């Protein structure tokens, strides 16, 4: 499942970040921000218009990501991890 599809409040764990194209700077920055294998994530809030952007809790930080950014991150549910 992609992070962009994760329901609000459901606990999950990052699988990996996918490059949308070769040398994708957005994907690289997401990895630098801590979106790496095994990191717990959660959708804290969603934007008022079309549920975009989404607010993600990762580590001790909250990042607002647009759906296009969140869809680069694949996640698995915590139970399966």
């Amino acid at each position, binding site marked *: 499942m992609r992070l962009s599809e994760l329901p609000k409040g459901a606990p999950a764990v990052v699988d990996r970040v996918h490059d*949308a194209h070769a040398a994708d700077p957005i994907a690289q*920055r997401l990895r630098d921000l801590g979106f790496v294998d095994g990191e717990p994530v959660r959708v*804290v809030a*969603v*934007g008022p218009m079309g549920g975009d952007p989404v607010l993600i809790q990762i*580590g*001790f930080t*909250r990042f*607002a990501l647009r759906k296009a950014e969140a869809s680069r991150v694949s996640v698995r549910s915590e139970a399966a991890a």
Partner: protein
Amino acid sequence: MSASTLRIALVGNPNCGKTALFNLLTGGRQKVANYAGVTVERKEGRFTAPSGRVLQILDLPGTYSLDANSPDEMITRDVCAGNYPGEAVPDLIVCVADATNLRLHLRFVLEVKRLGRPVVLALNMMDTARQRGIVIDVPELQRRLGLPVVETVAVKRGGAQALIERVDGEVPAAAPVQPDDAASRADLHAQVRELLAATLTMPRATAAIDDTLDRWALHPVFGLAILAVVMFLVFQAVYSIGKPMTDAIADGFDWMGGHAATLMPAGPLQSLVTDGLFGGLGTVLGFLPEILVLFLFIIVLEESGYLPRAAFLLDRLMLSVGLTGRSFIPLLSSFACAIPGIMGTRSITDPRDRLTTILIAPLMTCSARLPVYALLIGAFIPIRYVFGVFNLQGVVLFTLYLAGILGAMLVGWVMKHIRRDKSEHALMMELPSYRVPKLRDVAIGLYERGMIFLKRLTGVILGLTVLMWFLSTFPGAPEGATRPAIEYSFAGYIGRGLQYIFAPIGFNWQISLALIPAFAARETAVAALATVYLVGGEAAGGLGHALAGQISLASALSLLVWFAYAPQCMSTLAIIKRETDSWRNVAISFGYMFVMAYTASFIVYQVARALA
């Protein structure tokens, strides 16, 4: 006394308190706020350590990674690597990390360590960390990192004592340089996890109060309602708190001007003092309280951490007009002044997004427009209460701000379609912890803004006002003149010449003339009008009163709309040239705003006249 100067660079993730620490160390007054990307250029300061050694401190823009994505991050990367033009490699890097956010910030510390330069880690915001029950085993962290680690509280006097003692001592040995590749970068995260497991006890990942506040502030319905109420209250407050003070100042200057006149013989000098200085400058100075009230709210909002929440709520709207959520904060600073706003666009990654933001930033209503708005609204809009609570004057002011924002959205939308932009716009914005604004920071911020206004007043505005007085006084009326003397002056001729252009949008010759000095600084329009009317002997009872008698409501509305969109001021155009390095962008910027202002004023004037 030690002869050598130690050169120290402050680096770290955005919003970890580098600039607050810089201000504490150097006694500086650089702008601090509670969101990522406040500092977008390198700032230098110095102080003398207890040992007598001079420490030169470099404050750098925050970055999540040395793999820079935007112009501000590139500055930090280049200074650290010794590639910044005219800047030698720093002798010591002080890496600042937010003690409440170590999962994110320690990764950057490890990245900096790999540069192979002497590094000291400053764990900042230790006071907040303790309040939240966060326990950090500092000796163990220091041992595992192989770097000296000190605790700091940048917002408290003496909060950098441990850091000063450490950097004043021996420069620590550098770690070996390590290569930077995909595998070693993934490895940094593993190292951070190990470090945290061994040294950190964290009761909960976020502050409980943040979770509670965000449940409301980011709620799809309540969140937007809160945002609307907050914005609206700001404009109401500008009027209900600022206006009485403005009136008091205006009365004071009238009184002083009257007294000054009795002390001087009648003649040009008396006219310069009463009409130019007390009348012209005094009228502008009167608007200081309104500006300060506006800034009080802006500063409190900036310090609280609410602004990135507003950006979150409005992001989708920004995207639909071809902007990124990152544009929000530069655009918001443009409400103070477009110049810092345009500089703030350096934190925008995509060059095209950055250009769009630069071009529309001047449409945000800057504080220099406030005196003009306040003057005209005070003179033409009656004090009436809408729905019993909203002052009509405040409502009109709010509408003018809204007109600027809607105009900017329109321009953004048009630009998006001209360039057929299908590319992706990144957001990736960190939402900081909420913070209660510190009284001292608010006071310093207000003082700085007040001083900027007073410096403009005693500099460019004073100069232009004296010039306007000269133009409206000389040459005097010839023998046997039938019309008022001012119509024979330089000002009269220039103003009437300009009227050919501006008559269709309802401006008389006095207003047309005042647009020239307004191009240098918008507030000068108020001083210029005051001077011209006073010299012409038509300003009894204050400028607002004179205007109400001289021009129609249609002309006043047209002038308000003109100021909402007109290409001003010179300094803004100069900063566009500097930041984009292109005269073409300056021409585009000036051209589109002139057309937009003229068209909008024309429509407003003609419609208002037809309805009247």
